[in-house]
């Protein structure tokens, strides 16, 4: 009798489960964007005989069904919870949690990528800087794994080897070590980047090594909304958000930023981006190939050309007081050959400031 009852219960419950889930799946209104994953979600694919015959429709329908699944974020959290708590896996798709920080495994050291980065820097140096009076500096920003990985039992790249290899391949530049003025607390818990309000010592050290002095005090301001960094969405776990602070003063507020890509003049902090999908993009409007910051109140006519990645967006404003103009170049989005159209290299200070993450994946550099 129990077997019969059990079979009826199992059949009834499972039919109900499949019908409910299917109905929810079909009836759910599609979302356009996932805030937690910071990406545009797939929409119902275009239907045509050709797209069916080539399998394109089915392929896109698969993505649509995954992206638009009801309670997607909850299910992703369930998976992450199960991965960490039941399977006891050390990471979920490469994201791990340690000391209340979310971080992504960065391993192993890609020596070929380092060599490529060095080759790209050398190319820029030889094409534009070798025959000028420019003083060229280089500094490497360690990612969070530098502080977290090894001491928490995660595989970590050999940072000493990375720095030494880069230094030896770019010996035409003066290397500035900033690892001694950084600590784990200088990074967001849920994001890959460093916190602007904590990196003033880094800016001061870079400025001092480049022979300029930073002046003025800053007021620390905090965005009203919580900051959910890029790892928050990837971890899919209920981690408490960060606060996003920024430093400001009269000098910074008077600076004029010019964006060459969009031919747009603006200010240092982009308020539209501050309340967008990635608030970190409030610093100089996020990833852009070429920008200039002009400081009308500068006591000097010195200029800086900063070859940088996204870490550069939040530190560049802190270097403004030492320069009349800073040009920010991101060679991930702008081929170095095109630089001569926009930038005249005539003795400015030049700083290559790159994070270990970009150096270890330099295939993104043009």
């Amino acid at each position: 009798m129990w077997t019969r009852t059990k079979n009826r219960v199992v059949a009834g419950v499972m039919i109900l489960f499949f019908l409910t889930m299917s109905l929810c799946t079909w009836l759910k209104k599609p979302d356009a964007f996932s805030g937690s994953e910071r990406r545009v979600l797939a929409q119902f694919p275009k239907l045509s005989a050709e797209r069916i015959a080539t399998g394109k429709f089915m392929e896109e329908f698969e993505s649509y069904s995954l992206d638009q699944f009801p309670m997607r974020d909850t299910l992703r959290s369930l998976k992450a919870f199960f991965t960490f708590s039941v399977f006891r896996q050390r990471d979920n798709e490469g994201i791990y949690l340690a000391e209340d920080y979310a971080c992504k495994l960065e391993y192993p050291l890609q020596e070929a990528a380092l060599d490529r980065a060095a080759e790209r820097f050398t190319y820029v140096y030889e094409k534009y800087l070798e025959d000028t009076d420019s003083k060229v500096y280089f500094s490497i920003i360690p990612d969070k794994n530098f502080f977290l990985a090894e001491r928490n039992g995660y595989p970590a790249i050999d940072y000493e080897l990375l720095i030494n290899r880069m230094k030896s391949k770019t010996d035409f530049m003066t290397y500035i070590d900033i690892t001694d003025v950084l600590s784990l607390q200088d990074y967001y818990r849920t994001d890959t980047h460093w916190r602007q309000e904590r990196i003033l010592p880094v800016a001061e050290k870079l400025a001092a090594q480049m022979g300029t002095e930073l002046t003025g005090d800053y007021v620390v301001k905090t965005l009203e909304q919580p900051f959910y960094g890029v790892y928050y969405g990837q971890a899919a776990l209920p981690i408490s958000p960060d606060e996003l602070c920024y430093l400001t003063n009269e000098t910074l507020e008077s600076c004029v930023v010019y964006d060459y890509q969009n031919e747009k003049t603006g200010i240092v902090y982009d308020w539209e981006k501050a309340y967008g999908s990635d608030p970190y993009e409030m610093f100089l409007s996020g990833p852009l190939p070429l920008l200039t910051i002009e400081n009308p109140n500068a006591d000097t006519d010195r200029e800086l050309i900063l070859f940088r990645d996204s870490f550069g967006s939040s530190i560049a404003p802190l270097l403004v007081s030492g320069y009349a103009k800073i040009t920010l170049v991101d060679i991930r989005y702008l081929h170095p050959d095109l630089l001569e159209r926009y930038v005249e290299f005539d003795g400015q200070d030049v700083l290559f400031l790159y994070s270990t993450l970009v150096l270890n994946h330099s295939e993104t550099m043009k």
Partner: protein
Amino acid sequence: MVFSSIPFLYYFLPVALVLYFAAPKQFKNMILFLASLFFYAWGEPLNVIWMLLSILVGFCSGWMIEQHMGNGQAKLLLVLSIVIHVGFLVYFKCATVLPIGISFYTFQILSYEIDVYQGRVPAQRNLIRLGVYVAMFPQLIAGPIVRYADIDRALSERTHSVENFALGIRWFVIGLSKKILLANVLGRLCDIFLTSDDKSVLYYWLFGIAYSLQIYFDFSGYSDMTIGLGRILGFHLPENFNYPYIARSVTEFWRRWHISLGFWLRDYVYIPLGGNRVSKKRWVFNIFVVWILTGLWHGVAWNFIIWGLLFAVLLMLEKRWLLKYLEKSRILSHCYVLLSIIVSFVIFYGTNMSDLRNCLGGMIGLNRLPLISKEFLYYLRSYGVILLIGMIGTTPLIKILTGRLAQNSFGKRAVTILEPIVLIGLMLLNTAYLVDSSFNPFLYFRF
């Protein structure tokens, strides 16, 4: 379409089942055939033509073989038909694009034609019924290889019940969980290993173990889903796996692993060649033919042939000499079987001879690798629990424990309450893993 996908689970399956159960009895086969064509065409829109052509050739040749039964023309027709089907199969195995499931449905059609030729079954007069036998979506992609004689009757006369539904859905959910929660996760470890720059001898062994578990849970999970869906639709499909990793000899392993392929080759190749009731030389020849075919069935590549030959050699060694020693020690026999399986699946994995050399060389330390590496230690810790669950899952331990629990009335009540909760929990987890991950290929789709 794959079973472990959102389109299958929450779009195709509910609609197909509702239409199937709502249809009057005389239309059920038609609904099942059309649903199966849709299922196949979803992944391979154009290759559905090859399958339909194979069904048509099978239908015509079956009918003609029966018409000429007892004379030489029947044999000629059978040979001609086999040449066409095997020709298709060999052509596609050598081509760059292999239609999904072609090895499985070709063997099923051959089974039908040989059964008709041998007079075991009458030729099918209804094209749709033969179409259902060949293309039925639960077993179309990755078997088990169902012999026509086994389901001939069910094609025209089958019953549906709540018991069959409950049993089927249970089997399906367990199979799906094996695939998504174990095979896919272990596959991720294999993937990490393959792209690693920090390999070591023990890391190669970790890969070998993980891959052996992955391939087992992948294939047996698919077979479980097939059997479960078949049961829901009223078909009693044969089991394809019976805890092969607890075998104490390679001979026993092959009685427990991919049972339907073993039976097929035994019934349609080994026995017609004379089996073991022949001279020693001829027996050795028969064994080699069967195992080379087993290898080639998986793909036209040297690694599959070597894989088949390895088993041929091991089986002959066991028959002649080794079995009596293996029977003496339980531990030794298990170690021998597991070692043979791991090595064989590393050979099976190799996509070319260079991969094969690297993997086997890496396992015995020939590649100047360290014994352990930082990455090996990390992933051993990270995947330790899954590997343990996987190892337990290859034994009948859970089946024995739940069987014991259900022996008294308290246990029966507990199982009645817990089973639907566990099944729903597993479905939610499977869905969560699917929604979050794009790593989902079925290994046996290659064949």
